[in-house]
């Protein structure tokens, strides 16, 4: 009995001790305790009883009284003891136990000795039990701690809302992380469903779940809640209602799982899926998926179009792939499929013909292997027709290039940037270039073929090329050790289309023929040049712009401008006078357009500004392509010729002029003579008429007329004869001067004597009607002149003066002489000469209009003029009508 009580107390203590733990633990402890022994009374911790409503106390304890322990540990001990005593006495179980104990005691007596032993054993068992209990407690504690850690460390939220109105809500600590500390606190107090956190659009989901759970007792929903950073979290919530045995709801419980990551992953997967779908349906590649039998499972749009267009068969899921392709590809398709099924990845090119056009497809059969077995086969095909065409063109072009490359006479060697030989053609003189007998090979560094002593020079060349230079030079190389040959060697960069340095190309071109030709040409040119240089005529050349580019020796000699001075200068502006610029520019334009111009005369200016007349011919100069590049001008110096011609012309002109003058003079003379003769004859006819009529009258009427009458007529005849004689003398005198027969005979003439005699002579001959007043004003007593001519002139002058001053009693004669000249003036006071007549007075037989009544031949002044001409003198006439006339003659005096 004591043992039982003690044990019960122990059990109570054990229960008390475990009341703070989870209910399951309490249950476990209780069950464990019952298994060891049956207590007389059960004291159950109130908290445990509350939280473990399914703790089947009765099931365990049977009819034993139950005492529920409340209060503090010490009070509980005391209370437990009181209740225990009370319960032990009153409970039925206690009584039964007592009966069994009494029986046992009876047995004990019977087995007294055994009891003692058992006692000892019991003691040992007790010790062991204590130990076990201690160990169990430790284990339980550890387990509980683990469970708590699990619960607290779980991301999931576990909640329970009391529906009894007791307000006993629960929510796991993890809610703090998801919903926030406040929410957890609010939940524990008010049991709200954190509506304010749920996204507005998702609330209906949660609302519906809450409705469902109240109707069905179970619901689940997925919704989002807002997070602190304005994002959202996906939550999955499961809830159910716990009813009591009467079906009355006790509480609502739930678990919330954060499924944000899962949701996001789903979203990503969905997006990928969509994108893959887009790619799949829009790709140009034909994609078909088949199962292992060859039946089509899936195909994209590209394949659908292709199949319809090329094979005419509309692809359908479930058909064999070889039934969709063209007839000729069927077998191939089947074979390739089989091979793919065996796990091979097959790549091939298929050709389809559509309206005579070949369509090339690159086709892949890809086995899809799962667990080491081919479950599906995918065909992926792409159209490579264009690629194929380009490839064909490229191949053709490459073949052409190769043909050219191999057949050209030039040598080409292609090097990589590190001078490795990439390619070379069949031209046979690479060895010559490299001065080696080794056979060229691709992949070998070119430098290996070059003598060491030339290697650095060659490398230097290549480096220059690498820096962007293109090197080109002519070299005279030994050809196979036989003879020297000329090559033009060019080294250039080779770049790819993207501009990347691909390598170098060494090109050698045999220029032997060219060199020989050049040599011949040079020789010809030299000869020609020498010919031009040494030609005895000026030759020069100009370029298209008129600038001198050739200037031979004679050109230089002739103009005084050296070759160096003239090269590059414009010949028109430098050699010609401005007046010729325009016309010569036009000529040169013609010449430079291909029209040669011959023999035009042009004066060229020399350095000393002398005019050199050149007869020039311009011919266009052409280059090898017959393009006009300038003009050659060949000249001929005709300066002397021109001068000679000009002299000749001048001479001819002078002669002609002289002749013309002589002719004119002769003509005038003839005319004058003819006129003179005509006038003279007329002048003779008049006195002859008088004579004829007078003599005829006497003859006819001698009987009828008086002797005085006869005498009168005879006198008249005499007078006419005298007049005719005088006339004849004058005419003869004039004739003499005209014929040049009158010559000046100068002699010493005494002025006073000569003029005194003349004065008396004339006074007498004119019948002393007038006194001649002689005025001599002379330093010289005599002058050297032709006396006869002086006399003739003075007689004529004085006679005229007397004749034309009929009313006057004198005329004046002035004689003035100095060293240089003799001036003789005769002045009358007579009728004067009309002005209009003065200019004609010296014409033979001309008589002034007022002189008709005065006797005269009209030859006097004419004779004076002739005489003055001979003496190189001149005459001056001053006259006023009605007042008189003064005529002065001036004769220059010549001294030996």
């Amino acid at each position, binding site marked *: 009995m004591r043992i039982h009580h003690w044990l019960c107390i122990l059990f109570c203590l054990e229960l008390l001790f475990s009341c703070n733990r989870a209910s399951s633990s309490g249950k476990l402890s209780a069950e464990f305790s019952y298994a060891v022994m049956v207590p007389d009374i059960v004291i159950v911790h109130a908290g445990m009883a509350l939280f473990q409503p399914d703790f089947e106390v009765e099931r365990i304890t049977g009819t034993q009284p139950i005492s529920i322990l409340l209060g503090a540990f010490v009070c509980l001990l005391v209370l437990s003891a009181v209740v225990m005593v009370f319960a032990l006495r009153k409970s039925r179980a206690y009584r039964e136990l007592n009966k069994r104990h009494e029986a046992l005691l009876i047995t004990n007596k019977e087995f007294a000795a055994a009891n003692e032993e058992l006692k000892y054993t019991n003691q040992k068992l007790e010790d062991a039990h204590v130990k076990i209990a201690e160990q169990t407690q430790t284990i339980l504690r550890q387990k509980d701690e683990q469970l708590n850690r699990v619960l607290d460390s779980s991301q999931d939220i576990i909640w329970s809302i009391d529906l009894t109105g007791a307000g006993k809500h629960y929510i796991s600590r993890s809610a703090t992380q998801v919903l926030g500390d406040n929410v957890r606190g609010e939940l524990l107090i008010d049991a709200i469903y954190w509506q304010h956190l749920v996204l507005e659009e998702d609330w209906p989901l949660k609302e519906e779940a809450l409705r469902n759970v109240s109707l069905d007792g179970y619901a689940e929903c997925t919704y989002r809640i807002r997070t602190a950073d304005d994002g959202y979290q996906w939550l999955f919530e499961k809830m159910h209602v716990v009813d009591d045995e009467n079906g009355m709801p006790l509480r609502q419980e739930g678990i919330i799982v954060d499924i944000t990551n899962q949701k996001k992953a789903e979203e990503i997967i969905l997006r990928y899926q969509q994108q893959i779908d887009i790619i799949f349906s829009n790709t140009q590649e034909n994609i078909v998926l088949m199962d292992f039998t060859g039946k089509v499972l899936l195909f994209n749009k590209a394949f659908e179009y292709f199949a319809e267009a090329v094979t005419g068969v509309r692809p359908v899921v479930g058909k064999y792939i070889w039934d969709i392709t063209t007839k000729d590809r069927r077998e191939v398709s089947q074979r390739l499929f089989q091979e793919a099924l065996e796990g091979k990845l097959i790549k091939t090119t298929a050709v389809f013909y559509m309206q005579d056009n070949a369509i090339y497809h690159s086709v892949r059969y890809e086995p899809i292997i799962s667990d080491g077995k081919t479950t599906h086969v995918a065909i992926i095909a792409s159209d490579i027709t264009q690629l194929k065409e380009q490839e064909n063109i490229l191949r053709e072009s490459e073949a052409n290039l190769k043909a050219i490359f191999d057949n050209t006479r030039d040598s080409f060697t292609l090097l990589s940037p590190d001078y490795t030989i990439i390619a070379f053609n069949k031209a046979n003189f690479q060895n010559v270039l490299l001065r080696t007998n080794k056979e060229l090979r691709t992949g070998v560094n070119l430098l290996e073929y070059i003598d060491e002593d030339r290697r650095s020079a060659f490398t230097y060349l290549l480096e220059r090329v690498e820096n962007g230079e293109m090197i080109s030079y002519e070299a005279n190389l030994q050809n196979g050790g036989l003879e020297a040959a000329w090559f033009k060697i060019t080294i250039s960069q080779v770049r790819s289309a993207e501009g990347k340095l691909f390598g170098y190309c060494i090109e050698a071109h045999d220029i032997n023929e060219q060199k020989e030709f050049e040599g011949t040409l040079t020789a010809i040119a030299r000869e020609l040049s020498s010919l031009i240089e040494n030609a005895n005529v000026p030759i020069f050349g100009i370029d298209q712009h008129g600038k001198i580019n050739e200037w031979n020796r004679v050109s230089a000699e002739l103009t005084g401008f050296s070759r160096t001075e003239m090269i590059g200068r414009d010949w028109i502006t430098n050699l010609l006078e401005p007046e010729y610029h325009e016309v010569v520019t036009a000529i040169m334009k013609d010449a430079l357009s291909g029209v040669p111009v011959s023999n035009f005369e042009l004066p060229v200016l020399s350095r000393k500004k002398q005019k050199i007349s050149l007869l020039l011919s311009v011919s266009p100069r052409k280059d090898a392509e017959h393009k006009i590049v300038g003009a050659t001008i060949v000249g001929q110096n005709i300066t002397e010729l021109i001068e000679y011609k000009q002299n000749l012309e001048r001479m001819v002109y002078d002669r002609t002029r002289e002749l013309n003058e002589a002719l004119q003079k002769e003509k005038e003379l003839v005319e004058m003579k003819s006129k003179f003769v005509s006038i003279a004859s007329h002048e003779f006819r008049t006195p*002859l*008429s008088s004579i*004829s009529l007078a003599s005829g009258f006497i003859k006819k009427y001698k009987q009828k007329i008086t002797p005085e009458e006869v005498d009168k007529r005879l006198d008249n005849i005499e007078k006419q004869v005298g007049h005719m004689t005088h006339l004849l003398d004058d005419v003869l005198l004039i004739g003499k001067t005209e014929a040049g027969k009158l010559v000046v005979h100068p002699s010493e003439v005494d002025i006073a004597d000569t003029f005194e005699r003349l004065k008396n002579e004339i006074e007498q001959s004119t019948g002393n009607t007038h006194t001649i007043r002689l005025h001599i004003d002379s330093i010289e007593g005599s002058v050297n002149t032709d006396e006869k001519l002086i006399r003739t002139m003075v007689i004529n002058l004085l006679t005229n003066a007397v004749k034309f001053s009929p009313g006057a009693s004198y005329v004046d004669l002035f004689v003035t002489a100095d060293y240089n000249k003799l001036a003789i003036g005769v002045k009358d006071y007579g009728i004067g000469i009309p002005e209009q007549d003065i200019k004609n007075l010296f014409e033979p037989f001309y008589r002034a209009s007022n002189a008709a009544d005065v006797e005269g031949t009209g030859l006097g002044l004419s004779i004076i003029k002739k005489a003055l001409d001979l003496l190189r003198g001149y005459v001056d006439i001053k006259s006023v009508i009605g007042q008189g006339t003064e005529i002065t003659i001036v004769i220059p005096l010549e001294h030996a």
Partner: protein
Amino acid sequence: MPKKIMVVEDTPDLLQHVTDFLTMEGYDVEPCSNGHDAYRKLAYSKPDLIITDLLMPKLDGFALIEKIKQDKTMQHIPVAIFSAKPPHENEARALSLNVQAFIKKPCSLDDLHEIVKSILDK
């Protein structure tokens, strides 16, 4: 009634000789020393014949003849030229002026008379 003849001559001796001769032959002679003189006298005295020299001062023979031929009162009067100038030099002009005769100097009295008579007898 004797025929009236006007003689125009600038050489006084010659004029005298011709006047004397024609007067002796019974003609009424009007001597004039130049063309101007003659034209003045023609205004009141109309001769039956005009004998004129050509080269004369003041108004020469041709000018006189032109004046006569332009004057209706005297253009009918026959004119004879008495000149030393060779006739061929003046013929065209003389003909154009409708001159009756050309008496070349020098000439004999008979020749002169013959011409005068022939004109006046027409």
